[in-house]
């Protein structure tokens, strides 16, 4: 059985600021990032949909340490965003001075853009990730 939506297709779309996900035709729920089955009912009757790309911040952290080869990105603010369709997704937050961030960030509305992680020798190629700014 093949994936309805592979990483390759997801990545290609995200590089154009389009966030692709899956809608389950059985239970009506959304899965994003993609999986082989519906995250909710494990069904396989899925269709590819473009997510709205908007949501609210549910948690955050600003990292002052990072992995080998990514030191130049520090400090980096990582957010978990609850998309309007329900799923949570990892991304970065721009448009804010990290020194001013407080718990008030939780609940703030954001909209999606992207940035490409060019990859390193362990990553089998590049990968776009969501980069959020305030909506």
């Amino acid at each position, binding site marked *: 059985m093949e994936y309805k939506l592979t*990483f390759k297709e997801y*990545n290609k779309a995200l590089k154009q600021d389009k966030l692709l996900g899956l809608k389950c035709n059985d239970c009506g729920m959304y899965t994003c*990032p993609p*999986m082989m089955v519906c*995250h909710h009912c494990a069904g396989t009757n899925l269709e590819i949909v473009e997510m709205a790309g908007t949501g609210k911040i*549910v*948690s*955050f*952290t*600003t*990292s*002052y*340490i*990072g*992995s*080998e*080869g*990514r*030191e130049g*990105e520090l400090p*980096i603010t*990582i957010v*978990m965003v*609850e998309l309007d369709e329900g*799923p*949570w*997704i*990892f*991304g*970065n937050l721009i448009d804010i001075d990290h020194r001013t*961030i407080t*718990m008030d960030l*939780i609940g703030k509305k954001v909209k999606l853009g992207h940035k490409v*992680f060019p990859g*390193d020798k*362990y*990553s089998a190629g590049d*990968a*776009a*990730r*969501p980069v959020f700014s305030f909506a």
Partner: protein
Amino acid sequence: MRKVVVLGGGHSKFCFNSPKTSVEMLSEVAMDAIIESNLTPKDIQAINVGNVLGDFSEGQGMVQSFFANDIGCFNVPANRFEAACASGSIAIRDAFIWVASGYYDIVLVGGVERATAMGTPLATRTFAMYGDSRYEYPAGFTFPAAFALLAHLYSDKYKIPLPRLKKMMAAVSVQSHEYGMLNPNAQIQKLLTKADVLNSFMVTTPIQLHDACPFSDGAAAIVLASEDAAKKLTDKPVYIKGIGQASSGKLSSQYRYLPRLRARELAAEQAYKMAGLTPRDIDVCELHDCFSIAALIAAEGLGFFEYGTAGEAWERGETRLGGKIPINMSGGLKSKGHPVAATGLSQAYELTRQLRGQMADQGRQVDGAKYALQDTLGGDGVLVSIIYANQ
């Protein structure tokens, strides 16, 4: 299903920059475990080894067969188990199943890691491989960041103002270092104050240096035997009474439960049910405090405290020797150290000694302990619970 006994154990000093190779570290603790079990290497029928990063840290894969040969377990079947930080614990669980099933009578289980040889930047990179590489690593995912996200979620969900939560988290680290002082195998034997924790380097908000366990080198091993085989070898049997294991997907996919980790709750439920016990029956616990916030989440998920209240319990001393549930009398990952795949074996070593009453000399014996619970978390996905009993 047969009853399974933990016989002897071996435990290296956990440290930075071990002068020994992984094979050497593992061989030494394995031989100690075999000797303490009143056995010889010829008696070992099978070997399970947890090892995560031998390839990155030493260019050494398949450590299990090289070390088996080194200790004279010639041609004995040896398997490597990998589930990030829970590697050692899944190796124990599978060994239990093999002995309980009747296929083998005596199985050696070990765990080893030499993470500090990589240096911090590569170690951080390789540890992050146990998060989702395609959908989370590109955003800068690291394990400190994952637990930092959980800390802010915890503060928000349970309505504990962040400065208050930070003090509770500091209480976890302070306690761990206090008991680590009493453990000769601990990596960082130094008392900490709350101020030390709260003034330490900010790693990733709100996690500071002293909210985090160190990178470590070390090894530990135990021998498992069927009850019949054990009768001839020990008069102080410690039984494995319950086991549980569960998996989960990438951190964001667990959103319906976070900051709770559903896989832990399922694993613990399995272990309690199998042992016929409840959290109230447990006398001593070693849990996976890779970060201070992780200890709070773990203690709640294992059923010792209501959700959102573990921090107060630590502050009230309920997790200390003599408290409601003594937790991490070894110093935990924070002070004892965390040589990834050795951690599950270290927890087992500690708890079996607690149940045999052998920790009095070190001043950290839980008097009259009958039941012990081990909790190990691998990545953001694999959770293992093991319950031990001395009757």
